C-alpha cells in the first residue's frame, strides 16, 4: 500500500498530476487511512505472529516461548489437515458454483426485456440477508425434524441428517453459502454485461449465429475484468465470510461436521482459550491467502484484457 502511494515519479498524464507544495502534505492526507490499516490490520497481525511462538495462559500471567511448536502441532494434527482439505474443497465449490450460477442468471436476465426490473429485484434481494440469518433460514430448510428439504430428499430415498452425517452437512453448507452469494455475483455480472457496447454485440450477431459461441468468444472476454474481480471476492467470501453461516449451521458444536480453517481458529482461540495455537493457525491462513493473492495477480491477471 505505502509502496505504491510513495511513487509519484511514474509518468502520468500532466493534466491528472496533482502538485503538492509541501512534501508532508500528501502523507497528512494519507494518515487517516494509514492509521486505520495499522491499527486494525498490521498491529493485530504482528501480535498474532508474536503470540504464535508462545504458549500462554489465557489470563496473560505467563507465557513460554516454544519456537515453532505451535505450527508443528497444527500441521501434524490429522484433524487440522482434514479441516484444511475440506476448506479447499469448500472454497472451490462455493466459488465455482456461485460464479457459474450468478453468471447464468445474469445472462438470462440481460436477455429479458419485459419485467426486467422485477426479475432483477427478486434476484438481488437475497443479498440483503445477513449471513447468520441466511444460516438460520438454511438450518430450518435442512432441519432433521421439520426441514422441507429433508422431506424432499426423503422422496428420493436420501435419509438426510444435517448435523450428524459429514457429507449431508457439507452439502447443506455449500448450498446455503452459494445461495447467499449468487445475488452479489449476479449484480456485478449484469452490470458487466450491460457495459458491453451495443455495436460490438450487433457486429458479433452479424458474424455469428451461434449464441453460445458468440458468448464464449465475444461477451466472455469482455466480462473477464469483472469475473477476475469476482473470483477474488468469492474466494475471500468462501474462506472468511461464510463463518456466520457455518456457526449457525453447526449450532455451536462442530462435532464431526465439516468446518473451515477460520472457524477452527475461532474455536481454538475464543472457545478453547488456546491463544498460541490459534495464532499459529491464523498466521498459516494469512500466508496461504497472501500466496493465493500473489498467484492470482501475477498469473491470472496478465491474461485479462481491460478494455
Amino acid at each position, binding site marked *: 500500500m505505502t509502496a505504491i502511494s510513495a511513487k509519484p515519479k511514474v509518468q502520468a498524464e500532466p493534466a491528472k498530476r496533482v502538485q503538492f507544495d509541501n512534501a508532508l502534505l500528501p502523507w497528512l492526507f494519507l494518515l487517516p487511512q494509514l492509521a486505520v490499516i495499522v491499527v486494525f490490520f498490521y498491529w493485530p497481525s504482528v501480535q498474532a505472529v508474536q503470540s504464535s511462538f508462545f504458549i500462554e495462559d489465557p489470563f496473560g500471567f505467563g*507465557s513460554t516461548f516454544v519456537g515453532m511448536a505451535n505450527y508443528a502441532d497444527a500441521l501434524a494434527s490429522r484433524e487440522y489437515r482434514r479441516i484444511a482439505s475440506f476448506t479447499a474443497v469448500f472454497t472451490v465449490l462455493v466459488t465455482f458454483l456461485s460464479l457459474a450460477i450468478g453468471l447464468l442468471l445474469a445472462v438470462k436476465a440481460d436477455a429479458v426485456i419485459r419485467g426486467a426490473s422485477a426479475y432483477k429485484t427478486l434476484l438481488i434481494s437475497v443479498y440483503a440477508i445477513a449471513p447468520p440469518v441466511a444460516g438460520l433460514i438454511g438450518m430450518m430448510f435442512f432441519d432433521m425434524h421439520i426441514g422441507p428439504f429433508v422431506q424432499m430428499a426423503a422422496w428420493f430415498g436420501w435419509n438426510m441428517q444435517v*448435523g*450428524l452425517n459429514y457429507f449431508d452437512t457439507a452439502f447443506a453448507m455449500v448450498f446455503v453459502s452459494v445461495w447467499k452469494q449468487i445475488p452479489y455475483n449476479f449484480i456485478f455480472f449484469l452490470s458487466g454485461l450491460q457495459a458491453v457496447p451495443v455495436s460490438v454485440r450487433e457486429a458479433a450477431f452479424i458474424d455469428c449465429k451461434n449464441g453460445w459461441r458468440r458468448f464464449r468468444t465475444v461477451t466472455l472476454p469482455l466480462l473477464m475484468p469483472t469475473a477476475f474481480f469476482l473470483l477474488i471476492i468469492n474466494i475471500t467470501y468462501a474462506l472468511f465470510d461464510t463463518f456466520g453461516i457455518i456457526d449457525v449451521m453447526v*449450532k*455451536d458444536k462442530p462435532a*464431526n*461436521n465439516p468446518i473451515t480453517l477460520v472457524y477452527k481458529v475461532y474455536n481454538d482461540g475464543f472457545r478453547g*482459550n488456546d491463544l*498460541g495455537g490459534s495464532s499459529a493457525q491464523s498466521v498459516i491462513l494469512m500466508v496461504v491467502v497472501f500466496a493465493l493473492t500473489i498467484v492470482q495477480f501475477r498469473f491470472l491477471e496478465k491474461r485479462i484484457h481491460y478494455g
Partner: protein
Amino acid sequence: MKTTASIALLALGFSSVTATAQSTGITWWHGMGGANAEVINQLSTKFNEAQSECAITPISKGTYEEALASGIAAFRSGEQPNILQVFDAGAATIINAPGAVIPAEDLITGAGHTFDREAFIEGVRYFYADSEGKFVGMPFNSSAPIMYINTEAFEKAGFDVPKTWEEFEASAPALKEAGFIPMTASQLTWQFTENFFSRHNIQFATNNNGYDSVEGTEMNLTDPNLIHMFEKLAEWKDAGLFAYYGAGWADNQTPFEQGKVAMWIGSSGSFGGLQKTASMPFSATFLPYWDSVEGAGTNTFIGGAALFAMSGKSDAENACTASFFQFLTSPEIQKFYHQATGYVAITEAAYELAKSEGWYEQQPVAEVGIQQLMLPSGEWSKGYRLGFYPQIRSIMEREYNRIFAGETTVQEAFETIKTEGDALLARFAQTAG
C-alpha cells in the same frame, strides 16, 4: 399543581441519583439469555432494593463461552468486571490462573461474614473448590443430568420406569413395540462421559480427577466400563432402542417434546422450558446406572456455572461482591431462583424451605435434580478439574458422532479422544507452568 408535581419528580430523580452516587457500583458479566437473563436482572434489582451501600449491574455477554472469552480479554486489559460467571467446563481455566480471582470463601470471610461449607448440598460442595475444599467459585446456577419420562409411553408398554440400564434393556423393546423411540439424550459428553464417572464412582482422571495438579494429568477414557456403555449405546441405536440426532442439544430434545420418544436425558434446568413445549404429560427420574458396576449409584457432578470474584478491585467493591454472594445464598433468594428457573437450590436451607412450602408436591419434577445431587457421594463423584476442557469436549463430540455414523469403533474412538485429550492437558500444564 403541575409544576409542583414536576418539581417533586425532579427532586425524586435527584435524590435517586445522589443515592447511586454514594453507593459502590459493581458489575456482573454473565452468559445467560432469554428468560434466564431476565431472572438475573430480577435478582440484581432485588439486591439493589434490599440495601443501599452497593449497586450491582448485570451485563449479558452472550453464551457461557463468550462470557468467559470476554472476561479473559477484559482482564488482560485491566477492565474486568467484579463478578464473572464461568461454566463447569471452563472452571479449570479460571481456577488455574493464579491471581485472576479471589477465592469466594476468602472474599466472604475477609468481609467479615461467616462461611459454612456444610450449608451447601453435597453435590455442589466440591466442584468449584480447590483440593482442600476451599470454595474458589461461588456455585450459582446448578443443574444435574436427569431422565425425563413420557408417562403415556410407559402406560402403553406396561412397564415401570427403569432405574438401571439393565432395566432399560428389559423394557426398551416393549416401548419400541408400542411405537415409541425408547430413548434420546442431549449431551453425551456431560451425561454419558463426565457423569458416567460420577454416577458409577469411577476415577475420571489421574491427580485426583485433576484437582491436585495439572502436571501429567491423564484421563481414564479407555475404562472398560465406559467403553461398554458406548458399545451398548451403539448396539441400542442399531436395534432401534436409542436414537441419536447429533451433538446439538435441541435436535435430540425435539422428538421427545413431540411425544415420539419415551425417555429423554436432559438437564434438571430443562424443566421450565419443557413445561411449555412438551405435547404430552411427563415426569422425571434419576440418570440410570449399571447395577453390574460395583459401587454405582452415587451422585452426579453439578453442571451449570459458578460466579467468580475477579481480582484487582478496590476493597469497597470487594465488600459489595461479598455481600452479593451472601445475598445469593440466602434461603429466600435461592428458593426464588430455583423456582423461577428450574436450576437446583444449592443450599440445604433453601431446599427445605421450598419443600416446607409444598413446592415439590405441585412440581415433583423440580425435585429430581436436587435429590440426585444429594445422593451419597463417592470418592470420584465430587468433581473434575481439567484444563482446555471445552476443547476436549469438542473432540468427544466429534468422535461420538463418528461412532454413531458408523465411521469408527467405540474402542478406536476413545483411544483417539484419550490421545488428543491428554495432549491438550499436557499443553494446558505448559500454559499454567
